[in-house]
């Protein structure tokens, strides 16, 4: 079966991961699967091919192992998780480990939580980061506390990945912890806070203005402003607050925000916000001083 499947995969350009150096992202893998599923004809890799794929995970040839991992991703069934977990636990070179973690991320099956949890304790930062990212892809209530633990990691990038992941999964109960992490210098928490915080959290977030780099603060504000569940009054308050800060960076930020409004605004309140943004921008000189407030660049 596999012998038939492989030429098919190759013909659809899915062989790229087999030779690619960088592991595919979760989204890319999902696209792969969709492409494979949408293929008009020809044999597909299915569970029935597992017997042929799994021995290749033991191959001494790393390319063959990677190929087998990718095929398991295409199979995309919960049954492929245990072999991948076993592969990971058996200790692999970095690239295989990373590939397998990416595969689990793409699969996003809850039965991968256990092995991914183990890998959040891996000594290699890249493996830990991928493990957190893979966990974030899984829709399971056990994930949030695990991601929160990632905020306590000694590595900055792991903490950042965990913070972003918490924002991605909509972990509103983690908001306080994200604020704490933000206070402790986890700048990625700003985005997560912007995604998760309610109107009441904006004021708390704004207290960091002047203490945290402006660019970091804007990343959080951008999330707040982009959300439909935040009322216009709060957004107007954010614009006003940024107007007080002023500076070129804020001007550009607001300009960019302005561009997101539809060309024709029917809603009166939205139009008022639009005009408020325009006014604020107008108040900021194009090359204004004071742009470095809060260490912004």
């Amino acid at each position: 079966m596999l012998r038939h499947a492989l030429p098919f995969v190759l013909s659809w350009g899915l062989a790229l991961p087999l030779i690619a150096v960088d592991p595919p992202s979760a989204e890319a893998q999902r696209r792969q699967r969709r492409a494979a599923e949408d293929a008009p004809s020809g044999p597909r890799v299915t569970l029935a091919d597992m017997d042929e794929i799994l021995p290749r995970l033991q191959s001494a040839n790393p390319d063959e192992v990677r190929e087998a991992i990718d095929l398991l991703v295409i199979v995309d069934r919960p049954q492929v998780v245990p072999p991948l977990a076993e592969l990971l636990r058996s200790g692999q070179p970095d690239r295989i480990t990373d590939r397998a973690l990416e595969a689990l991320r793409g699969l996003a099956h809850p039965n991968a939580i256990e092995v991914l949890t183990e890998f959040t304790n891996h000594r290699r930062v890249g493996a830990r980061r991928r493990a957190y990212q893979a966990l974030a892809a899984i829709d399971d209530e056990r994930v949030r506390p695990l991601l929160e633990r990632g905020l306590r990691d000694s590595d900055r990038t792991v903490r950042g990945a965990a913070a972003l992941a918490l924002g991605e999964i909509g972990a509103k109960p983690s908001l306080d912890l994200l604020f704490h992490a933000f206070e402790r210098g986890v700048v990625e928490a700003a985005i997560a806070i912007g995604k998760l915080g309610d109107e009441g959290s904006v004021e708390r977030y704004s207290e960091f203005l002047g203490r945290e780099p402006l660019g970091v603060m804007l990343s959080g504000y951008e999330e707040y402003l982009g959300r439909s569940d935040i009322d216009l009054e709060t957004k107007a308050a954010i614009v006003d607050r940024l107007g007080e800060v002023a500076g070129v960076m804020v001007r550009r930020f607001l300009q960019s925000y302005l561009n997101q409004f539809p060309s024709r605004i029917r809603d009166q309140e939205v139009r008022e916000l639009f005009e408020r943004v325009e006014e604020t921008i107008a108040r900021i000189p194009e090359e204004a001083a004071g742009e470095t407030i809060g260490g912004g660049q």
Partner: protein
Amino acid sequence: MTRVAIPLAALAAAGTLTGCFGVQQAGAFSYRFPDNQELDLQPVLQAGPAPSAPEVGNPSGEPLVVATTHAEESGAVVALGLDGEERWRHPFDAMTRPEILGDVVMTSDREHVVALDARSGEELWRKPLESLAYVGATRRGDTIVFVTSVGAAGGATRVGHVRAVGARSGDARWEWEIQGVLGRPQVWGPNVFVPWDRQNIAILDVTTGLEKARLRSTDDVIAWVNATSAGLFYGGRGMYRFTERSHTGTKEESTYRPSPLPEAPREPLVEDDGFFPVPGTRSARGRIRLHYAPAPSEDPTAVAVHHDQFYFTYYRYVFAFDGEGTLRWARMLEQDVIVAKALESGLFTVGEQGAFRLLDWETGAERWSGGSERELASAGVDLGAFAPAPSGELEARDPRIVLTEIAGDPDNRLVPARAYAIELLAQMDDPEITRLLLDLYAQRHMPGALKEAIANVLRTRATGTEALVEALDQRYDYLADTPAPPLALLVPALLEQQKTEAVGGLVRHMLDHETPMAVLPLVVRGVVELGDESIVPALRSFLVLYHADSTFQEKPEALAVAAEGIFRRGGDEGRELLQALVADGTTVGPVSTAINGLFEREAQEAEAAARAEAEAAARAAEEAARRERAARPTRLSQAAINEVFVAQTEAMRTCVEGELERNPRLGQVRIVFVLLNDGTATEVRFAPNTPEFVACMEPVVAALEFPAFVQRRQRASFTVNLRGDSSEQVAEAPEDRFWWSRAQRRAGEGEIGRPWWEVRQAPRQPGAATPQPERPSGGEGEGSGEGGDQPWWMEGGEGGGEAPPAGEGGEGEGETPPAGEGGEGEGGEGGQGGGEPWWLPTE
């Protein structure tokens, strides 16, 4: 050493001195002067003042501090009351600490020794230093004796100058200059004691300057002399009291007390080194000191100290110890102590910022405080028996807390004393101390030297060790700002104390990525050494997970230790895993190398062990052989030979029975041979020598194993008389066991023909042709014997020089086989003539 005493007359003549002095003809600092003379020292001792309470000596009658100032436009010497009020001020850049000698204050600048009026500070007189350094002065009555010297720290120039002058006038009384170094003098009674060349104390008459006696230490260094109201003391690191025992010149026989704190940092002395000036400027010298308050004692062997207490000052820290060196209390002061004086009431300290304190001797609490805020550099004190009553109840602070504060004090100038505080802390049995030490270790700014000190003491602590195990529960947490536990500290201590209960915590840290890479090998080592077989799964997981990971490419030590643990405790399964990992091409090279090394090392060790075992066996064999050789007889006795034959009785019986059947009248069987010293039988001859008998017996004899012996070879024989005379049986054995017994029994049962013992050898008939055994050497063949030739086996008794049958002569040790000829005309069995055969019972 050359010492030159320069009489004043000569000096004056040479123009080296100014002024007019009385002439001293002789008698000081001469190398010919006899030292340690009991008769000389006794009057000095008797002339010493009786012990008394210390008194204030300055004219105000009140305690006084005279200090040099610091950080002002120009230097000054100031006299301060204990309230800190300035009594007088004299602008002066003092280079040495002021000394209060009654109504005179002595100090010096770079060029002169200067005397100030203790009442007003006005200068009374000055004397040029003449390139020497002022080291100190002492006073008796209106005479001040001061010493200037140079060379104590080494160098080519070594000059000492001692001068006696009028206390207020500066008028010269006498002086001596020597080529050697002199120390700070001390007046005791009518004499002045001058330390000299670090080994001697010249005892001069204050009035005349003549040397009256001399002390010399034969096994110690003398660095100082201190005359107190309780007596005169001198010494180096230890303390001597001047008594009638001092003339011995030895530590053991003098009145001596060793340093109470030999382990204290910077090896502090109980007095300032008298051969060096005490600086009048801010200096480390003098700020690290031991202090004691001498107490009078009737016991000539005792160096008594008030409360048996010593104080150790180290800048801002004060430690109080008993005479055994056990800590009583400790204090951390706000100001560096520039001078301290031990009193019966406690320790009086002068702080660098002008604070005066009296620390209660018992509690260390502040019993009194005074002074005023001013920058001081050095000070001399005249306190008498200052002992103010405390204003309230004095509370002692817990030494654990104080020592912890000292250890954690951020003042990094004082690291040695902080390390000392850690050592003192660790000497306490309180289990809580271990936790305190761990907390100290965890302090972010703790210097490395102190961390090392903590690590060292924790390894040896016997109490509170559960805190070490509990400390493993701590885990790194970025948000909580919690660091990883101090594993570099904990693991060696846990290993040292074999805390097997720590294995669980260590495994957790082994698997925790927050464990720093630098300490990970140590953690894994802890798991391996403290754990048993139960740790193997964790080690396996760890090793397998990372065996191909780049994390350990550069630093494979932790994996190597894990592999060692599996190798040692994992059994066959573990070894199979290790071999599989080596075979796995993805295993990082250094890890494979480490695993291979384990197997190779084991093979080498096994090889070495086998080699050692073989060598030991060879040595043992050699030794056994040597003993066996030593135990060998010079030659074998007949009994020993018989014993060998007895072991082959069954085989021989068959041959003899066969021969008896052929020759029922056979009376005797005899085997004669030569034994080599390795036990080999050669040149064997049989009688009878019928071919059948010889053929039968040869393999029997060949199978015999004789013991080795020393002599190169010996002739031997074995004879069996087949006749009834049991006394002829050479080989004795239990009757029912041996062939003759059985032969007898079988004969009785009719199994064989006529029993041999019933056969009475008939006298040989002349001419009768009785078949005779062939002479072994003759080889004529069966039945060729003739009547005139007595068979060879009949001619002698036992071979080998053993007792021959009765009536026969022995053959001796000759190697010649028995000869058939030369007999007495007797034939063999049934032979005739000549009389009875030798085997017949004698009448």
